[in-house]
């Protein structure tokens, strides 16, 4: 009586997608090739047309649900006989995470890793690289993907401590929760609360931030700098910039100053390869700018900022931010960063403790510029324009004294923008 439309593989290596938008509702009469639903995977959205004509009987996957390839999205009454795998499908919808299904999957998988020193596991190159980066032996990881493929999620869920000493890793032992499971959120007053699925981007941010705090011992140093001269400089060139269609903010100055700091303190333009205990020094200066949009936070970076002038940097910042809003940032524009600037100053606020954008080792937080009293060099109290700076850094690589020296350097450049001409 019904046709089940299942999520097809919409891209190579695609394992799941999120139901972004239903274009039909239950009870609708539809024709073959009518659009049914929009599915979001990573950052592209695909509209799926219906393979059959009929009546929409039941929408199985709701908006916001994450669905795997092969999961039923919708049941359409097209007058055909029920497909034979009905029972399994309806069950799968309610108990996707149940171990029964996992067992079933791995039992039918052609090549789960079982033998000793067995290298015969299935995983995409990106997953293999990911596991190598994390120092995880894939032959120990139980697969949950199609055809016994090990997915990135399997690597994430793999608990090194819980793995048996032998190379035998039965699926059940690994699919159990990790040693310190996160308790589900419970409340006495659920009726006063609402639940909403996290968007794909939100999930990515949540994961990246937790990971960063887990990997890196963060220390944050605070400082402030008097920037009247910098403000005067900006005021002087703002109109010239505007005439060329460029919006000159304080950010380009900060980018320029940071480049000078990185040149003097190469530890801040580095990453740590913990698999080899090596420090990787970068001989390029790609300065990331954290960009807040209504659909999430992105960090495009200004490539080779050392080779660019202030106007050019200002222009690129505006372009990148527009691209972020339009969801048009390329993956490349967000990769290979040296250090990140997080600017909340345009909204307000002072000091805060930014989280490092991995695999970088430092992040500079920029607060607002406020009129405050300060003691000038001649000993008198004056009204100064004070910029609040907060720098978080990776204590594995950078110690407090070094960080303060770098901050001192930054202060010097921002206090006297003429120095930027000399060193920027």
């Amino acid at each position, binding site marked *: 009586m019904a046709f089940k*439309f*299942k*999520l*097809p*593989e*919409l*891209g*190579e*290596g*695609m394992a799941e997608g999120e139901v972004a938008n239903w274009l039909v509702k239950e009870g609708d009469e539809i024709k*073959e*090739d009518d659009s049914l639903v929009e599915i979001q*995977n990573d*950052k*592209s959205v*695909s*509209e*799926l*047309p*219906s*393979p059959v004509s009929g009546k929409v009987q039941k929408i199985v996957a709701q908006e916001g649900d994450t669905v795997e390839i092969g999961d039923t999205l919708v049941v359409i009454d097209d007058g055909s006989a029920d497909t034979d795998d009905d029972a399994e499908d309806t069950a799968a919808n309610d108990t996707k995470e149940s171990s029964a299904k996992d067992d079933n999957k791995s039992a039918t998988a052609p090549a789960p890793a079982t033998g000793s020193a067995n290298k015969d596991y299935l995983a995409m190159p990106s997953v293999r690289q990911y596991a190598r980066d994390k120092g995880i032996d894939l032959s120990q990881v139980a697969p949950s993907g199609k055809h016994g493929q090990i997915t990135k999620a399997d690597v994430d869920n793999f608990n090194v401590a819980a793995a048996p000493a032998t190379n035998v890793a039965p699926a059940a032992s690994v699919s159990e929760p990790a040693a310190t499971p996160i308790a589900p959120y419970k409340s006495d007053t659920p009726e006063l609360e609402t639940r909403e699925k996290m968007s794909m981007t939100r999930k990515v941010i949540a994961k990246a931030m937790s990971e960063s705090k887990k990997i890196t011992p963060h220390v944050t140093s605070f400082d402030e700098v008097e920037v009247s001269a910098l403000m005067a400089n900006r005021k002087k060139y703002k109109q010239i910039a505007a005439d060329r269609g460029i919006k000159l903010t304080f950010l380009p100055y900060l980018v320029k100053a940071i480049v000078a700091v990185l040149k003097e303190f190469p530890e801040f333009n580095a990453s740590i390869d913990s698999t080899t205990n090596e420090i990787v020094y970068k001989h390029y200066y790609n300065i990331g700018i954290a960009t807040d949009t209504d659909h999430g936070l992105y960090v495009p970076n200004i490539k080779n900022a050392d080779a660019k002038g202030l106007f050019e940097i200002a222009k690129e910042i505006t372009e990148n931010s527009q691209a972020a809003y339009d969801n*048009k940032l*390329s*993956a490349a524009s967000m990769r290979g960063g040296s250090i990140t600037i997080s600017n909340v100053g345009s909204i307000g606020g002072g000091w805060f403790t930014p989280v490092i954008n991995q695999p970088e080792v430092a992040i500079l937080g920029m607060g607002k510029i406020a009129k405050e009293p300060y003691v000038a060099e001649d000993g008198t109290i004056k009204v100064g324009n004070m910029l609040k700076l907060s720098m978080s850094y990776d204590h594995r690589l950078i110690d407090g004294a070094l960080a303060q020296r770098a901050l001192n350097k930054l202060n010097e450049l921002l206090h006297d923008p003429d120095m930027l001409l000399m060193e920027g």
Partner: protein
Amino acid sequence: MASKSIVDFAKIKEDLSDLPKQIQVVDENAKIIDQDVFKSFSDDQLVEFMKKMVWERALHEQTMNFSRQGRMGFYAPTAGEEATEMGTVMAMEKQDYLLPAYRDIPQLIQHGATVTEAYWWSRGHVRGNEFSARALMPQIIIGAAYLETAGVAMGLKKNGEDAIAFTYTGDGGTSQGDSYEGMNFAGAYQLPALFIVQNNGYAISTPRKKQTAAVALTQKAIAAGIPSVQVDGMDILACYSVAKAAREYILAGNGPVMIETLTNRYGAHSSAGDDPSRYRTKEEQQPWLDRDPLIRMRKILTDKNLWSQEQEDKLVEEYKNSFKEAIKEADAVEPEKVSDMLKRTFEVPTPELKAEIAEFEEKESK
């Protein structure tokens, strides 16, 4: 010591930057550029050209839908390339041997394969390697069809057949060693081979300009001693006329020819999931959409009172219905067996293969 260089490389390099003349019969505003060639076509022929392009666009649209419904295997979108694909294949004869790449499914069908066979190929079914047309299965390895073409052309020459081998690759394919080796071999033996480069501007995400320092891909044939020509790939009359002239020249025993058609792929590289908006801007693509091959033919035919929108809509529906029939037929085939694949490995199976076939037939019978 030497104050004057023995050689002026700068000058030599400069000479290499001369662009070839691009052949056109009708321009993007439907203005007739070459009256003589244009007049050589009858009204019926002109309508036929349009029909083939409408057919290919409909095939693309319907197959794209099938792909999003999970009913296809690999599929490489063809929208935008109707003129170069249909124009060149229509200039060939049935006895000619086609060696397609994966984006050349429409030509394969025009050359005689059925849509159902093409869908089987997409799904990886073994029956998708046996076509009703004189053609090999579409080559997935970039540029490799050029090698096969040289071999097939050698065979045609040795057999003394009144036929040529013709093949396609993209702009990216011309950077592969295979494409040069194929052309060089065909040149060395003066084989009856036509090499077509469909330059659609992008090798997946790599733009043509980053692909090579050569200003035109026609230059790639020069080293192999093969005459080459650049054609407006959005002008079906030019594509057809040049391909036809090339075929006649080759059949007369003059050796191979290379044609570069300048075209554009409107969509993604393939159904494997690339998102063109990440590597290509709308502004950059708009001029190509304005040059759409269907627009100019539609205008010419409408001006001659040979075409109407109703007629086109009706055709599109007819075509799409035929593709829906074709996929039903494709669905109805018995699923592929391992033994079937093994049986197609050698004409006379080796003892090991025989044992393997028996083993799988045993398993499959249960």
